[in-house]
């Protein structure tokens, strides 16, 4: 009898915890980091079980649970996107320089400013990185240990969220680019002395 009750308590406890996680992710408009959730649930095994339960639960709903790197977010399902003509925020189109720079950062990250310029063959005009920073799509990575310690740039989770990507391995066409060696960072064009000045 006691055992039964304990079991029941355990189950009740699990259900409550699942509800808490569900409510935490659901109530936030930005992706919630795994670590934030873990602060509530403490036990990794339980949290993992809850997250996989929730993913399944919402699989065939109008809302799905998205995993973006190690963050979690509910987003409306892509199945219904054409039926949801609600107030869409029409984003101001980015300049070509900005979209290309974004792609270069996304596919080559972490990457320094001079490496970006090297790839585009143009010096980065003022304001290009600025726009991407303001959108919170890029953030500083570490500093390289080459002379001058140039800063590297990388993409953020908000970038992944915006483009419906799970992680950067999910970037369109990245496999092809990799296989054809075009993302080979070691293939730095020779004699680029200017490479590492900031």
């Amino acid at each position, binding site marked *: 009898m006691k055992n039964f009750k304990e079991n029941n308590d355990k189950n009740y406890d699990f259900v409550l915890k699942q509800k808490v996680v569900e409510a*935490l992710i*659901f*109530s*936030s*408009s*930005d992706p919630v980091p795994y670590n*934030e959730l873990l*602060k509530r649930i403490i036990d990794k095994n339980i949290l993992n079980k809850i997250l996989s339960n929730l993913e399944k639960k919402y699989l065939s709903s109008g809302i799905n649970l998205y995993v973006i790197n190690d963050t979690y*977010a*509910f*987003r*409306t*399902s*892509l199945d219904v*996107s054409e039926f*949801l003509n*609600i107030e*869409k*925020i*029409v*984003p101001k189109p980015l300049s*070509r*320089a900005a*979209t*290309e720079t*974004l*792609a*270069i950062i*996304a*596919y080559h990250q972490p990457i320094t400013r001079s490496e970006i*310029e*090297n*790839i*585009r*063959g*143009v*010096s980065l005009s003022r304001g290009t990185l600025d726009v991407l*920073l*303001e959108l*919170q799509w890029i*953030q*500083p990575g570490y500093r390289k240990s080459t002379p001058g310690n140039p800063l590297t740039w990388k993409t953020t989770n908000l970038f992944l*969220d*915006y*483009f*419906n*990507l799970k992680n950067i391995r999910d*970037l*369109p*066409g*990245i496999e092809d*680019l990799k296989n*054809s*060696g*075009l993302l080979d960072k070691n*293939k730095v*064009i*020779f*004699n*680029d002395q200017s490479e590492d000045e900031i």
Partner: protein
Amino acid sequence: MLKLSSKKNDILSLSLDGFEGPIDLLLNLARDHKIDLTKLSILKLAEQYLEFLDHFIKKDIDIAAEYLVMGAWLAFLKSKLLLPDETEDMSVTSEEISELLEFKLKRLEGMQKVSKLLFKRYKLGTHFFKRGNPEIFGIYKKNQYNSSLYDLIKTYGQIITFNNNKSITIADTQLYSVEYALNTLKSFFKHSKDWRDLLDFIPNNLINKLERKSALASHFVASLELVKEGSLQLRQDSFNDNVLLHSK
């Protein structure tokens, strides 16, 4: 040297028409030649590019500056091709150079392609949506401020800018005053009864555009002033003709 002169203007106008970056220029040049990138004559391409750049430097240094990254690299390639390296270990064969250029162009093309692919994806706020009315829990108490890294570094940038700008430099200018122009015109037409072109009064030792423009403007204003006084006549035969002055 090259049959580029007739095409030069095309390229220039293209580059002004939302045409951005030497990547496109290089790719376009390569395509124009209908040459497989692998069989491309780098020397020719580099020369065309550098000639284009040269032309641009005279026209608009700001745009040309953007193109210099690729320009410097191509100039380097060209020198490698033209002057065989004397130090053995440093020498680079022309095949290697071809390969590198091909790699560079392909990579650029690849990046342009994927940037388009990226923006063709389903996008948050357009095709799928986040919670419209988020609730914020005590757990996020530290998030009661929504400052981003961008806010932080932008603010710092502004502080630094402000501190650097505490002293404002007012640059020397040599602008022509209307009084000066009035005196010149008056003293000239005291002795002359001929029609004279307004432009003749602009000192021709002015190299600076701003100074020239200010001289032109003040002389024109001064001549209107004299017409009002009734001591001068102005004439312009048709819209694009020069303005002529004559004493009354």
